[in-house]
């Protein structure tokens, strides 16, 4: 019995075959509920009385077929993914960095393997909320995929993507509607620049950053390459800066030369890597302040 699922098995098989053919993504049996959840709103919008009727429409209507495939092949990246790293950023890392950059008044961040840009723009939102007036920031977003970089540059996201972890207050503050999509506001877009980069290749000319986000990407490389990346990325993290890996990647075994390069520091629920001997330590209690961007957005 398929509890609560109203979609006919034949409809599920038809749509699963379509998605497999077009995208290589496999929807296995028992995922009927997921397919139904994603197609039901499209069925309503198309005026269909059931998901089955909508699947039949998808079979003959190219536009609906594209919508259905988009809904079923969603990039799983979300805004403020895992939350804890962003909390550690505003509560610990940013105050410490600001305390030692009072003259330069600039924060630089590298979102390595940025995918479609949610990580870079999530950080941009926090910088907008927490950097005082007179401070500037830039975020470098790199990825091996030029298609992903084009998405970051466009700063446009689908309705489905916007639902993933983005508070509604941030949605209305930092995005505007652009047809069926949402466009990041220019002030945030201007904070992010992109560059094509394969992490397994050279980082020459990339610069030095106060925070490098290298989350959930090392797992895709073999161990020698992971170690090589951690070795080569070291000079690109400021002496008192931070490197954040994914939550499942912080316990990766490191050879002796790497443990000599990196210290580990626990920041709440997050473990950061810092260049060995980094001297500045957390300064807690940074409060949200209105930046020029905030003021412009709110009309203040």
């Amino acid at each position, binding site marked *: 019995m398929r509890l609560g699922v*109203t979609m006919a098995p034949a409809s599920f098989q038809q749509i699963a075959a379509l998605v497999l053919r077009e995208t290589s993504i496999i929807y296995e049996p028992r995922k009927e509920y997921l397919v139904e959840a994603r197609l039901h709103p499209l069925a309503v919008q198309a005026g269909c009385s059931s998901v089955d009727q909508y699947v039949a429409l998808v079979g003959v209507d190219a536009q609906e077929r594209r919508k259905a495939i988009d809904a079923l092949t969603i990039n799983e990246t979300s805004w403020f993914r895992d939350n804890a790293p962003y909390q550690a950023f505003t509560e610990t890392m940013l105050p410490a960095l600001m305390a030692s950059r009072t003259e330069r008044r600039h924060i630089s961040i590298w979102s390595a393997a940025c995918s479609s840009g949610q990580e870079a723009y999530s950080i941009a939102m926090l910088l907008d909320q927490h950097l005082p007036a007179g401070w500037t920031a830039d975020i470098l977003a790199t990825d091996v995929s030029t298609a992903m970089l084009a998405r970051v540059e466009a700063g446009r996201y689908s309705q489905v993507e916007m639902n993933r972890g983005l508070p509604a207050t941030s949605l209305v503050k930092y995005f505007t509607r652009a047809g069926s999509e949402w466009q990041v506001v220019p002030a945030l877009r201007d904070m992010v620049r992109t560059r094509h980069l394969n992490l397994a290749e050279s980082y020459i000319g990339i610069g030095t950053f106060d925070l490098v986000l290298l989350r959930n990407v090392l797992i895709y490389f073999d161990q020698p390459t992971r170690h090589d990346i951690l070795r080569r990325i070291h000079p690109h993290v400021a002496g008192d800066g931070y490197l954040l890996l994914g939550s499942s990647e912080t316990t990766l075994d490191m050879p002796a030369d790497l443990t000599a390069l990196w210290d580990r520091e626990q920041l709440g629920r997050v473990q950061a890597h810092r260049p060995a001997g980094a001297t500045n330590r957390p300064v807690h209690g940074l409060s949200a302040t209105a930046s020029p961007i905030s003021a412009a957005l709110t009309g203040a």
Partner: protein
Amino acid sequence: MRALIIDDSRAMRSILRRIVSGLSFETAEAGHGQEALDQMEAGLDPDLCLIDWNMPVMDGYTFVTRVRANPAWRNVTLMMVTTESEQGQIVRALAAGAHEYVIKPFTPDAIVEKLQLLGLVDKGVLA
């Protein structure tokens, strides 16, 4: 924790019920805002309402304003789940007292993540 699911689509109520039941919520359902208000006035005490906007009898926006007008329900978390996607509509719902806003279509993870933002679901659920 108890969730009241308010949507005139039985299929959508079923989808939302499966998602929040999986997060250990008890669930109740209503087909429109007035039916939901009637249930709450009769003693149903939800921690969370998932609210469609366009429904017969009483729409979701009116329901939000009615709940917010009653101090006895000040602790109820209100989340719109709707196809209404105009920026002005979102601002209007938030100003009326909705805590969060999910635009259809959505993935099950989107609901879980929003409930995490609202502190109604433990952060570890998706870990």
